[in-house]
């Protein structure tokens, strides 16, 4: 397989192009789909002034929260961080600038960037305090909020399986924002729990084609973050 087709590399090499003050999308909804291997490697690089974009803040000491706790982030674009009182406190103390969006609109803003659209027109939040911070327009007799698309310098993505060219398959609720973010950044780095040869994935069931992917790195399955978090298990 020629090197041009084989996108596999190690996390440090893949992350080298993420500079201070970059904007970085991070897949995952809660723990599932969070790229823990890539986040751990990025934390070791300790970049400064990042804008992080994720559905949620993970939880204290886990995933994207570790970057914010270490002071690597200046800004956080997010939908909900109810399980992370540390990050809420950073926001309340003014240590972190936070931009919040309705969850589905955050997904649509990212997807719109990936689809090369400048923005989308929605009525979500039109009768709420969100309207005050948003551009509105009259369209076909109705008032709409104009939401700009949301693109980032880099996206960190977690997949269950990837082939060496970056064709991706996600698993269960670990899919969430991952395939969307993988379309919406200039540099797309994927970690996969399993990396297979080209041709091993069913073409009808590839969730995202490799054209969107720049680097594929193996996820370190030994990290406890990939396991079941006991505090979220139902009590008998």
């Amino acid at each position: 397989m020629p090197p041009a087709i084989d996108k596999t590399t190690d996390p440090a090499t893949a992350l080298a192009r993420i500079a201070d003050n970059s904007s970085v999308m991070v897949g995952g909804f809660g723990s599932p789909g969070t790229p823990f291997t890539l986040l751990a490697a990025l934390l070791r690089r300790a970049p400064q002034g990042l804008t992080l974009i994720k559905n949620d803040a993970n939880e204290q000491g886990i995933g994207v929260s570790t970057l914010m706790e270490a002071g690597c982030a200046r800004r956080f674009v997010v939908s909900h961080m109810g399980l992370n009182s540390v990050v809420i406190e950073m926001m309340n103390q003014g240590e972190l600038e936070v931009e919040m969006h309705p969850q589905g609109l955050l997904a649509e803003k990212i997807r719109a960037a990936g689809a090369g659209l400048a923005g989308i027109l929605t009525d979500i939040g039109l009768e709420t305090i969100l309207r005050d911070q948003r551009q509105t327009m009259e369209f076909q007799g109705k008032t709409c909020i104009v939401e700009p698309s949301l693109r980032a310098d880099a996206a960190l993505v977690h997949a269950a399986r990837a082939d060496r060219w970056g064709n991706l398959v996600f698993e269960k609720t670990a899919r969430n924002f991952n395939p969307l973010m993988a379309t919406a950044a200039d540099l797309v780095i994927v970690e996969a729990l399993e990396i297979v040869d080209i041709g091993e994935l069913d073409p009808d069931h590839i969730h995202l084609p490799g054209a969107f992917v720049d680097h594929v790195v193996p996820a370190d399955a030994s990290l406890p973050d990939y396991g079941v978090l006991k505090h979220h298990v139902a009590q008998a």
Partner: protein
Amino acid sequence: MSPKHKIARRAARELQNGQVVNLGIGLPTLLLNHTPEELEIFVHSENGVLGMGPRCPLNQAHPALIDSGGDYIAVRSGAAFFDSALSFALVRGGRLDVAVLGALEVAENGDLANWIIPGKFAPGIGGGMELAQKARRVIVTTTHTTRSGAPKLLRSCTLPVTAKACVHRIITELAVLDPTPQGLLLRELAQGIEAQEVLEKTEARIILPQADPPRF
């Protein structure tokens, strides 16, 4: 039976065969404990699953399978997984039959406030705004008053709203009430509760039915 389970048991009766339903975090998820065995509903969770089942014990938990509250769940036969864009296309596109949500406040016209207490509680917006604004039917399950006994069902919301005039039915441990422009229509009373108690614990105007309301 605790007030919360009483509410959940009554709310479970709102669900009909074949419906696509989203159950908010907290009290609404208790509905699954009270639905009849033969009821076939498809439960949606914002994080990308339709057909979720109940929370599951450790030995059945899969690290990649949670609900939007972070709890490990099972899925039922016929379930499907999808990305976050499709998950909310289903909501905003009009294919969610029922959303059962919690509330900080509900106004008599159906305005719902359940996402922010400015200066005190602002964990984010999550999927609630889209669920409240776009589900075909919104049912609020809530205790009738706050822990300190203050009314939660108001003439108008004091907190920033999640969506306006979106609530079709409110189910508390005391009563079932339907918002209308003229006030809350009392539809049912809990066993052992008199209308007078509901009137005393509610700030919203209440429209009493002609006849004695049914009991639940």
